C-alpha cells in the first residue's frame, strides 16, 4: 500500500480534469439543453404507431383486418370494421383506437401488418393533461400521410413504397389480359338487395390506393369473367392461378377454381348463396371475410382448404370475419359432419 491518501488525490485529479474539460470539450458533456437543443433521433427510432394513408385521408391503407389487434401484446389496439347499412364490410376501420398509455412501443403491429398500413412514429412529445381520453389516439389522430412517413423515415418509407409499387405493377400486369375482357355480367345474385350497379366494379368510395384498386379491378373482373357467361377468355382463369399461389406460399397448390364470392364487398348470405352448390372447401372459403389478410396464417383459399383437409382445427382464426365467419364455419363443419 502506498501513502495513505494517494488514491484520494488521484481521484481528485480525475475530477479536476473533468471540471476543466467540461468547459472546453463538448464531447465530455452528459446532458443536452433539451427544449433548445435536441438530439437527432435515428431513423429507426420508434415511439407510437400511426396509420399511413396515400394522398388523402380517405385512402388509408388499413383494411381493418384486425391482425394487429390480435397480435398486439398489451392489447392496446381496438378496431371495429366499417360496414355499410347492409352489414357489408367496407374494407376500412370505423373505429381504430390505440391506447398509448398501454402501448409499449414494441413494433409488433408494424411487423405483422400485411398492408404496410401501420408504422411507428418517432414523435416523443406526447404528454397530455388527462390520463384517460387524451391518451387514446382515435382514427383521425392516427392517420398520417405517406409524405409524413417519408419525411420521418426516408429510407424505410421509400423501400416500402417501392415494394408496394412493385406489387401493384405485378398485379396490374397479371390482370391486364383480363381487363380486356368485357366487363361484368357478373353473377348478380337474385337475393342480393340490389347494391350499386355493377357491383363487381369497386365503388368509388372504397378505401383503396390506386394500385390496390387496379389490382382488385383486375382480380374481380377476371374472377367474374370466369364465373360469368362464357364470354370470358379461358386464359384469364389460368392467369389468375399463379396469383393465388403466390399469395399463399405455404398451402399446397390451391385448386384452380373460380371463386365468384371472393369479394369482400359481398355480404355473407350472398357469398354463401354463390357457393351453395360447391364442395365443402369452397363453402368454407365463402364464409371467410375475403380480404386475404393472412390473419389466419393463410389466404382465404388456403385457410378453407386447411380446414377442409383437417390440417387446421381452429375455426376462429378469421379475424375480419369476426363471429359471423366463425359461426358459419362451425355450422358448415357440423353440416359436413366433421365436428
Amino acid at each position, binding site marked *: *500500500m502506498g*501513502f*495513505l491518501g494517494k488514491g*484520494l488525490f488521484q*481521484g*481528485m485529479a*480525475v*475530477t*479536476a480534469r*473533468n*471540471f476543466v*474539460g*467540461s*468547459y472546453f470539450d463538448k464531447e*465530455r*458533456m*452528459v*446532458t443536452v*439543453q433539451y427544449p433548445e437543443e435536441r438530439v437527432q433521433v435515428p431513423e429507426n427510432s420508434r415511439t407510437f404507431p400511426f396509420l399511413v394513408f396515400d394522398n388523402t385521408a380517405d385512402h388509408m391503407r388499413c383494411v381493418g383486418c384486425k391482425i394487429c389487434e390480435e397480435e398486439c401484446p398489451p392489447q392496446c389496439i381496438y378496431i371495429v370494421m366499417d360496414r355499410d347499412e347492409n352489414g357489408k364490410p367496407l374494407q376500412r376501420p370505423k373505429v381504430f383506437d390505440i391506447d398509448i398509455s398501454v402501448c409499449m412501443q414494441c413494433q409488433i403491429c408494424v411487423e405483422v401488418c400485411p398492408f404496410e398500413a401501420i408504422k411507428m412514429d418517432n414523435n416523443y412529445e406526447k404528454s397530455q393533461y388527462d390520463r384517460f381520453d387524451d391518451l387514446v389516439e382515435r382514427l383521425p389522430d392516427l392517420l398520417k400521410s405517406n409524405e409524413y412517413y417519408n419525411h420521418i423515415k426516408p429510407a424505410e418509407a421509400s423501400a416500402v413504397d417501392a415494394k408496394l409499387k412493385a406489387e401493384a405493377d405485378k398485379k396490374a400486369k397479371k390482370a391486364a389480359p383480363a381487363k380486356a375482357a368485357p366487363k361484368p355480367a357478373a353473377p348478380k345474385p337474385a337475393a342480393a338487395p340490389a347494391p350499386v350497379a355493377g357491383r363487381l366494379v369497386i365503388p368509388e368510395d372504397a378505401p383503396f390506393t390506386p394500385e390496390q384498386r387496379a389490382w382488385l379491378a383486375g382480380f374481380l373482373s377476371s374472377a367474374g369473367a370466369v364465373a360469368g357467361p362464357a364470354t370470358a377468355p379461358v386464359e384469364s382463369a389460368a392467369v389468375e392461378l399463379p396469383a393465388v399461389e403466390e399469395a399463399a406460399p405455404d398451402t399446397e397448390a390451391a385448386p384452380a377454381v373460380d371463386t365468384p364470392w371472393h369479394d369482400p364487398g359481398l355480404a355473407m348470405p350472398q357469398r354463401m348463396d354463390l357457393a351453395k352448390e360447391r364442395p365443402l372447401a369452397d363453402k368454407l372459403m365463402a364464409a371467410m371475410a375475403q380480404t386475404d389478410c393472412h390473419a389466419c396464417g393463410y389466404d382465404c383459399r388456403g385457410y378453407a382448404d386447411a380446414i377442409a383437409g383437417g390440417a387446421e382445427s381452429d375455426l376462429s382464426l378469421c379475424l375480419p370475419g369476426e363471429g359471423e365467419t366463425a359461426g358459419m364455419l362451425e355450422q358448415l363443419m357440423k353440416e359436413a359432419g366433421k365436428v
Partner: protein
Amino acid sequence: METIYQLLQTWLPNLPEPIMRLISFAVPILFVISVFPGIFAYTTLIERKALGRIQNRLGPNRVGRWGLLQPIADGMKLLTKEDIVPRKADKFTHFLAPVIAVIPSVMLFAVLPVGSGLIPVNLNIGILFVFAISTGSVLALFMGGWASRNKFSLLGAMRAVAQVVSYEVPMVLAALVVVMATGSLSLLTIAQAQSGGFLNISNWFVFQPWGFVGFVLFMIGAMAESARTPFDIPEAESEIIAGYHTEYSGFKFALFQLGEYLASIALAGVTVTMFLGGYNGPGSHLPYVGWLISMGWFFSKMMGVIFIVIWIRGTWPRVRVDQLMSFAWKMLLPMSIINIFAAALYHFMPSKFLAWVVTAVGLLICWWGLAKLNSDGEIKKRTYRYAN
C-alpha cells in the same frame, strides 16, 4: 466594533453616546446578516455549478443568466412549500430545532477578521468562542432527529452527535498549534501574526510543516463538524434518507441547510484565518486601500477553501460510521498531538531551516507510521486470477 465607535467619536463627536453605541453595534450585525446569507445563497449555486461541471453537466442555468437567480428561486420555492409536521412528532422541539441550528452558525461570524482591522467583535478568546459556539449546532441536530419521531431521523441524530463530539477533539488540538505559535486566542492577533514576509504570503502558518498538518487536520475536522462529504453520514442519503432532517420540509428544511452552510462557511473562514494567513496577501497592508484588498483576499481564500470542500464532495465516497470514529480517534487525535510536539520542536530549534526539515520529515514519518499501524493489513489492492 470598537473601530467604528472610535471613528464615530472622531468624526461625529456631537452624536449622543447611546446612539453612537447603537450604530457601532448595528453596523457589524447588519454586515454579518446581510453578507453571509448572501454568500450562503451563492455558495449553494457555486456548489451546484461546480458539481455539475465535475460531473460534466452544466448545473443550474435556467433562472437568470447562468442561473444567477437560482438561489432566489430556491428560496421562494422552499417558502411556499407546505410545512409538514409528523402527527406524532414532538411539535415544539420539531419547530425549535431548525431555529437553533441557525443561531450558532451566524454567531460564528462575529469573531472573524474579514479584513485588515475589520472584525465585528475582537474577542480575546476568539478561538474558544468558535469552538464553543460551533458545538452548539449539534444540539439542533439532535433535537431535530429526536423530535421527528422517525427511525431514520433518530439514527441520523445519533450519528451526528457521535461525529461532532469526536471530531471536536482533534480539531481543537489542531488549532492549538496556532495558539502556541501566536500566544493568543484572538483571531485578529492570529491573523496579524501571519502578516509580513515575502508578499505577505510567506509567513502563513500553512507553510510551516506543523501548520500544514494542522491545516489538514483542521480541514478534516471542520468538514466532519459541518457534515460535508466524505463525513456526511448524519444525512447520508443512500443509507438513512436525509438523516435528522428527513421529516423537515419547506422553510424549516431551508433553515437547516442555512445553518449547515453557514457553519461550513464560517469554519472555512476560521481555517483561512488560522492557517492561510487570514486577510493577508499581496497588497493587504497598503494604506487607504489595504482594508479593501485584504477583504478581497479573505473572501477569495474562503471561497477557495469552500471550493476544495465541494471538489472533495464531487470525488470521494462517504466513509462508514465506525471508520469515521476510528479515523478520528486513531489517526487524527494522535496526529494532532504529535503535531503539537512538532510545533514545539520547531519553536525551540536553533535554525529555522533545520527546524522546517526536521519537523516535516518527522511528521511525514508519523503519518505513514500511523497509517501502517491502523491498517488491518486486509485492505489492499488485489490481483485476480482468470479461468479460461
